[in-house]
């Protein structure tokens, strides 16, 4: 119910069209319900001439027929109008929800994205939002229709003759029981169904993506078995759902048809007693079928609602997750314009500790260091020692659990994140390219950059040469997930993008790992030439990548084991020497 209140917030803006949709719908149904009455008039008065002593009245038949035709027309117009207004309301408010969802997701902190998982976020904004749209339309149209048909049909039936009420009273509980039973049994099955479908999809996706491993280990039979199991489960669940749904309608039909028989019987008794005209019995049967339609709608509405509500809650969870890292507009200008000590491009860590919120295990302990303007700091350390976590704190992808991270002397939490990230450029470990041209991918760094600047950035990133070799040069499109480019080429495009941004602080998070050594060396040389005034923080595995840095930070188990220049560390740090030896072996003297 709280979820429905949430939904109401979005529909509120469209209250007027929603109202019109409902009103036109009511008009449509009322007219529809009026039809059998005119039918009864034609039969009773026109044909049988009951009130005029058995004299038929052709004029009455014609005039009533014409009135019916006009009503039919009006009914259609109302129906179409109601459809238009319903769509405006339903799709319009869904659009608001969708846009808000996307906006929220785009501004989530990394931690929040991790919590939801990107796959789930995508499903929510596509599938779930569509289900919510169905829910809204169903709430407007379905409910109104169902109530009108049901109440209207019942009322009309009772006004014809109250004795029909007995039959309706007998049939209704049976039908309700049928609906309640089916809804009660299918509801939990829908969740199971969704889960088994998810599992099937997961297996397909994993196996298709990892086909080389499956084949290399000759595990095709086992994967087929794993799939068969998931397939069996899905198909069985589907069968159960279908069977339950298949039961609902025939049972309802039987009950209502029996009710029709009952009406004829009661009608016969009444007609025999002279209390009722035969035409009325016919109208009564028509009304009964309208009650049936109302009931069947109810059953379907329950299905849509139980599906829709599940989706609504998933969407609500996204919309109501406020970004943890909020913008501080007033801080933006002040902070970026003048730094505390007049320095630009400095980074300072003061006793920083950090743990990922979801696991709680501390990754970094009491880290303190400082990087000055134009300096190059390299970070080296074992797998899982917290290198990536450390640099993620600078552009505030995550917040430190303890201590402070300062950029230009100001706590990163005091910055507007947008302004902060203008200063700090991160080239991520995984080079994510978008499915557009190479040029557009580089331009993402600074959309207003000129062609020369793009080329210059690409040249510094050692990418210009291979880009020109592509079929359309800079206009070559990067195919789905960049499959057409090798890992090293993708990394260099990502580096060009980072360089083009010209931030004051540039962070390379192991972003040259797929480059061969010569290319990497050329890249660092051109960085020294062209980006000398940019503060650089470089995470790397290879000594060659870090040895020319002004200072090297050796990270070990979340703490700084040593720091200094290559020579200093060689003399003082056993850990560093160990790393060096592991790469150089017997050639230490080189």
């Amino acid at each position, binding site marked *: 119910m709280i979820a429905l209140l949430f939904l109401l917030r979005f529909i509120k803006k469209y209250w007027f069209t929603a109202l019109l949709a409902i009103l036109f719908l009511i008009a449509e149904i009322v007219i529809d319900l009026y039809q059998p009455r005119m039918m009864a008039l034609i039969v009773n008065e026109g044909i049988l001439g009951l009130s005029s002593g058995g004299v038929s009245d052709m004029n009455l038949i014609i005039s009533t027929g014409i009135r019916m035709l006009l009503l039919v027309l009006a009914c259609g117009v109302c129906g179409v109008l109601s459809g238009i207004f319903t769509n405006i309301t339903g799709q319009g408010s*869904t659009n608001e929800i969708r846009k808000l969802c996307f906006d929220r997701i785009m501004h989530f902190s990394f931690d929040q994205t991790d919590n939801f998982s990107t796959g789930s976020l995508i499903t929510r904004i596509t599938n779930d939002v569509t289900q919510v749209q169905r829910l809204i339309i169903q709430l407007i149209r379905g409910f109104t229709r169902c109530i009108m048909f049901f109440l209207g049909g019942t009322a009309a039936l009772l006004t014809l003759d109250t004795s029909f009420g007995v039959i309706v009273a007998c049939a209704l509980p049976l039908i309700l029981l049928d609906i309640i039973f089916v809804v009660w049994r299918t509801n939990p099955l829908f969740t199971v169904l969704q889960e088994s479908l998810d599992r099937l999809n997961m297996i397909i996706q994993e196996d298709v993506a990892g086909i080389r491993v499956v084949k290399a280990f000759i595990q095709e039979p086992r994967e087929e078995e794993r799939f068969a199991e998931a397939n069996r489960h899905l198909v069985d669940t589907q069968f159960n759902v279908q069977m339950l749904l298949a039961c609902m309608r025939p049972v309802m039909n039987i009950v209502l048809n029996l009710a029709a028989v009952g009406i004829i019987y009661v009608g016969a008794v009444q007609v025999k007693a002279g209390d009722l005209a035969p035409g009325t019995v016919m109208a009564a049967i028509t009304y009964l079928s309208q009650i049936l339609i109302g009931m069947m709608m109810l059953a379907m509405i329950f299905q849509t609602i139980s599906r829709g509500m599940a989706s609504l809650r998933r969407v609500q969870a996204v919309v109501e997750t406020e970004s943890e890292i909020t913008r501080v507009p007033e801080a933006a200008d002040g902070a970026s314009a003048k730094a505390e000590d007049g320095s630009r491009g400095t980074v300072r860590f003061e006793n920083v500790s950090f743990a990922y919120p979801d696991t709680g295990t501390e990754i970094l302990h009491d880290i303190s260091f400082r990087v000055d303007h134009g300096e190059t700091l390299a970070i080296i350390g074992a797998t899982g020692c917290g290198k990536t976590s450390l640099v993620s704190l600078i552009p505030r992808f995550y917040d430190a659990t303890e201590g402070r991270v300062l950029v230009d002397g100001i706590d990163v939490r005091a910055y507007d994140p947008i302004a902060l990230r203008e200063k700090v450029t991160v080239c991520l470990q995984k080079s994510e390219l978008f499915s557009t041209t190479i040029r557009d991918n580089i331009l993402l760094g600074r959309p207003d950059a000129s062609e020369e600047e793009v080329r210059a950035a690409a040249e510094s990133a050692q990418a210009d040469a291979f880009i020109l070799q592509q079929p359309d040069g800079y206009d070559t499109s990067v195919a789905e997930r960049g499959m057409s480019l090798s890992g090293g080429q993708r990394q260099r495009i990502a580096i060009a993008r980072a360089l083009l941004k010209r931030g004051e602080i540039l962070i390379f998070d192991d972003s040259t790992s797929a480059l061969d050594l010569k290319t990497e060396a050329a890249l660092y040389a051109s960085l020294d030439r062209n980006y000398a005034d940019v503060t650089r923080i470089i995470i790397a595995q290879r000594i060659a990548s870090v040895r020319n840095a002004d200072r090297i930070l050796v990270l070990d188990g979340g703490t700084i084991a040593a720091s200094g220049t290559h020579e200093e560390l060689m003399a003082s740090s056993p850990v560093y020497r160990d790393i060096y030896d592991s790469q150089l072996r017997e050639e230490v003297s080189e």
Partner: protein
Amino acid sequence: MSTNSAPASSAVSMGFGPRGRGAPGAPVEKPKEAKATLSRLAAYFAPDLKYVVLLALSVVLGVVASVLAPSFQSKAIDNLVGASFDAIPPILGWMLLLYLLNGGAALLQGYFSSRLTQRVIYRLRSDLFGKVLSLPIPYLDSHSHGDMMSRMTNDAENVSNVISSSLSSLFSGVLTLIGTVVMMLRYSVPLTLLTCATVLLSVVLTNVISKAMRKYYLQRQQLLGRLNGIVEEKVSACKTVTAYNLQDEAVTEFNAASDEFTRIGIIGDSIGNSMGPMMNMINNLSFVIVAAFGGWFTLKGMISVGVISAFIIYSKQFSRPINELAQLYGQIQTAIAGAERIFGVMDETAEDHSGDRSFDVSDGVIEFEHVNFSYVPGQQVIYDFNLRVEAGKKIALVGSTGSGKTTVVNLLMRFYDIDSGRITVDGVDIRDISSDIVRDSIGIVLQDTVLFTDTVRNNLKYADRTLTDKAMIEAAESSYCDKVVDALPDGYDTVLTAAGANLSQGQRQLLTIGRAFLSYPKILILDEATSSVDTRTEQHIQNAMVKLMHDRTSLIIAHRLSTIQDADQIVVMEQGHIIETGTHTELLEKGGKYYTLYMTQFAGKET
């Protein structure tokens, strides 16, 4: 009272008028070879012929009951009008019986149709999945994975659903139509003709609306594709979006697409939804015609009042299948097109496992002889490649990105077949032995760290689940992933989520190395297997490997020269050619390409 005998699935969509999917006007795909595809589909239904026959019988039963019932109702009304009340109860008895039969038939129909669908989907999907697994790597590399997935889930489900439910709807629709027309003609020819006229009107109207709608549906489909594309790309790359402050651009792009999608959606659906009221209008029109003309005919004494009542039901029974038929036709066409896509995959040639020679890899001597290869004809990537790897030796492949190192592995694993030349293992051409034998003797660690959603234990024991935990822990220790596993909440029983996303890249590499170690291969291939692992851990792994592989062959690809310094032979590749071979010392003395690479790495500058 109408006594519809719609089968289970259409029950869900009844009563609301067209709603989006499957509505008339939704784009219909045209199958290319409907007949051939249908007969192949029939083969999938053949094992369940029992259910097909039972389904058909229940449909016939239902239709007969629903066609006969109104005539009894008509008699009852006539007796009512004629005041012969004693004749009514037996008629009502018949009606009761018919309605019960009809309901029962509908239940059976639901049961048989669901059973049939479920069994066919199961077979279709399992076959397709088995086929996909057996497809050669080149096919899988060149086809979109998303597309493959949608065939296995959506297409398979759609095909069997539509075929088993729509076909029975079609069957019952046609039967009902014929039965109804026969009954109506028996009562009154002119009234039947009038009723048919309204049906004609509804067919024309459906067509007009469908045409108007089709344009918007197509447009909406494209817009939806764009919208989903934006979501998929921007959400999965949200870290990059955040890092580059592109949130607002992304939101603006998304909002524009979303607004346009909504605008077109409102127009399209408004037209689509008007179908319901329009149909209702025509149904009511037919109601008026039956009432007015029926009244008139009654006055003329041509028909009885009861006939009017029967006609009201018949006209509804008559227009329903007509409205449905057009829709069903579209659904069936789309389903057949889906089936064609499925069969398209099934018709792909499976991987060539051929090679009848039974053979045991004993020494693990690998030899490449004059191997030429191109992924795409005309773009050769490996030129006259000659390499002999002696048993128990450690060979390293080095070279810049794109020099063809990974390709060599692809060829040895028989993921791709060579253009000319030959590759032998222990002197036997790998095309002469089953690829399973080749793969069984090779342990491989790939550049992409593929892990499965399963426990760590099952991931490590991927090659053979019957291996002992002791062996597994030993392999984990030598690959240094034991520390990673120890840090996981449930140790070896931790279920890796989303293909191991909760581990860092380096940690995932360690697990895949552990997996390869555990399979005790005759030949071990490491393709950039330690690129994200720090060099010290890497060195420990190397040491373990020396022990593990002392009598086995290993092939290592790496950027980091430290990884491969102690190799027995280092092969330097450039643009698909071997340009240098030798040991580390020999190559350094030679002062060629390897020397340059080496100096770059350790001196950190070009020489």
